[in-house]
């Protein structure tokens, strides 16, 4: 204990010097912790982006997009055996259908307005699967209940909130679809207006409603992890052959974002090591100076019975305490200044063209959808497939990056203290070893 206590007290022998050294080490460590925080933030964001878009594939009819464009619906047997692939977690078929009401007894502008009001995007969803929306994202239930397996084949629907509002529908109301009444069991809302205008049917109900027995318009495939996406695409293409396209939702976008983020992480990594090296050098030279100043004292300590171990522990502890004091200053600097600067820096990084290129904001999704909805005269969704597909992933990435937060956490504190401990031990080691080599007779002779 006495060696530790003495080491601790020795730090305060020259308060001015300790203050200056603590400030210098603190500056270096605050820069280091800023780099660590940025790295963590980037890693979190990247993980979020990967989690949100990275591992989902789509199987679509050749040349079509969500039931639009060229191509025929797919037969369910396309999926046979695919679930046995080791990298596939889940396969979820859907039916995407554009419902256009038949208007009898109306004509001219009145008929067009009624069609516009009643038309809907229909999604046939396997019960217990998320309420996927064509164009990206998932709708969440706001009222009522979700589909259960028992609902498959039953005349029940979940209606988007905007569609329900426009057509005065509530939970428990009946919805007329091709002269068949469906009971509304829930209302759902998504990230954009298009989601809110979607009507969801149980998958088998949709198959029956639109005469698509044993068929689907596409299927979502969830892969276990991002690195397996590419090989899974290859395996699926081999298995399915010419029957369908296998498309990765946001592969290219994700790659671009990942490259940019990797670049940022590389920079923070260099900054971190520079900061650590600077802090280490400050500790090293301070301890070297300390040892040289106290040569005679070291000689005296040896003369009165100090072992090399006692000296080593004393100097190492002094160095560690100095480093930890620097770390405390570093934390204060980070919390007061560094965190703000790091957040601003991160915001700038996120808004750089390298990161945002190709990433479409949720507003853009809505704009695209609005354009689609307004294009009735030329056919719904015509030519919009590729844009919407890109937007679906892009909107998600952009919203993830928009939430970047550079915060001080317990993990960061632990890492900072570990770095300070390491710096203290390494920075103090060589000077302490130098102290051990001093011969008491030589240093005392110089008095």
């Amino acid at each position: 204990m006495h060696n530790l206590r003495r080491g601790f007290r020795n730090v305060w022998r020259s308060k001015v010097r300790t203050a200056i050294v603590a400030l210098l080490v603190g500056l270096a460590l605050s820069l280091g912790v800023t780099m660590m925080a940025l790295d963590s933030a980037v890693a979190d964001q990247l993980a979020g982006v990967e989690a949100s878009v990275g591992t989902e594939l789509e199987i679509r009819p050749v040349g079509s997009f969500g039931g639009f464009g060229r191509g025929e619906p797919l037969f369910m047997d396309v999926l046979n055996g695919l679930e046995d692939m080791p990298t596939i977690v889940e396969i979820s078929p859907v039916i995407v259908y554009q419902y256009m009401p038949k208007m009898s007894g109306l004509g001219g502008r009145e008929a067009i307005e009624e069609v516009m009001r009643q038309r809907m995007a229909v999604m046939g969803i396997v019960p217990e699967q998320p309420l996927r929306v064509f164009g990206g994202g998932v709708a969440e239930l706001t009222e009522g209940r979700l589909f259960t397996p028992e609902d498959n084949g039953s005349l029940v629907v979940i209606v988007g909130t905007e569609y329900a509002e426009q057509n005065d529908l509530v939970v428990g109301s009946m919805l007329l679809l091709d002269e068949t009444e469906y009971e509304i069991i829930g209302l759902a809302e998504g990230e954009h207006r298009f989601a809110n205008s979607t009507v969801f049917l149980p998958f088998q109900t949709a198959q029956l409603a639109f005469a698509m027995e044993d068929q689907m318009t596409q299927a979502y495939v969830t892969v276990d992890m991002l690195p397996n996406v590419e090989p899974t695409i290859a395996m699926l293409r081999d298995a399915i052959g010419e029957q369908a396209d296998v498309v990765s939702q946001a592969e290219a976008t994700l790659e671009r974002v990942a490259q940019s983020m990797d670049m940022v992480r590389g920079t923070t990594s260099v900054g971190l090591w520079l900061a650590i090296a600077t802090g280490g050098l400050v500790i090293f030279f301070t301890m070297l100076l300390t040892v040289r100043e106290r040569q005679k004292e070291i000689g005296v300590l040896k003369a009165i019975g100090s072992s090399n171990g006692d000296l080593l522990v004393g100097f190492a502890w002094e160095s560690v305490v100095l480093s930890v004091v620097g770390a405390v200053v570093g934390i204060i600097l980070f919390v007061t200044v560094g965190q703000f600067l790091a957040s601003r820096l991160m915001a700038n990084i996120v808004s750089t063209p390298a990161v945002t290129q190709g990433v479409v904001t949720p507003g853009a999704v809505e704009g695209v959808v609005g354009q689609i909805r307004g294009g009735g005269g030329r056919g719904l969704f015509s030519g919009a497939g590729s844009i919407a597909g890109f937007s679906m992933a892009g909107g998600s990435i952009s919203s993830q990056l928009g939430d970047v937060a550079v915060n001080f956490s317990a993990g960061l504190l632990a890492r900072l203290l570990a770095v300070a401990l390491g710096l203290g031990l390494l920075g103090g080691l060589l000077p302490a070893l130098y102290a051990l080599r001093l011969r008491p007779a030589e240093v005392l002779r110089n008095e």
Partner: protein
Amino acid sequence: MNNAIELKNVSKLYSVKGNIVEALQKVDLSIPSAVFASIVGPSGSGKTTMLNIMGGLDRPSKGEIYLAGQPFHKLSETELVAHRRRLIGFVFQSYNLIPNLSAIENVELPLEFARSGNTRQRALACLEMAELPTSRHKHRPNQLSGGEQQRVAIARALANDPAVILADEPTGNLDSKTGNQIIALLKRLTEQEKKTVVIITHSPSIAVETMLTAEMLDGTIDRTVNRQK
């Protein structure tokens, strides 16, 4: 009478800028136990070198050293540290107290290095032996006079109850009155505590107070004066 310190044919050579300097030349000296001894001689005659070799702070180039019967010339560095800690107390001309420790903490240091229990009690006893007033125990060195600092240094030397106390010009920085008090204290340690005390001094008046004086000249013992009754 047993010898507390025995030097047999001890030489110490230094290499200075390629030249060999013989600081000690085939020195033979025996200092019996419980004797107050002095080493005198002009500057550069080898007094401090001999004292350092006696205390195991330096190693001889040739010869044998026995301290309390232990062959210091044969001991490893670790053994030497352990024996030095147990057998020898050092007192220096400029006191060499640790500046950020109080008087009593300075005395506790050798006890802590020796992993002794109850260091505070033993340190108090040593300070009492060194006649430092209790009111000064918690003062730091820069709050003490030279004489008081040297008393603390002597108490520190006594901490592990060594057989031998080696003092390099312990009165060198003190006025004559205080110096005489310190010499009287060291003398009492010999008489009452049966310590073997060896001091280096330039003062003939102090040397005559000691029982044995080794007069050094050019690395050799020119003359030994034995005043033991």
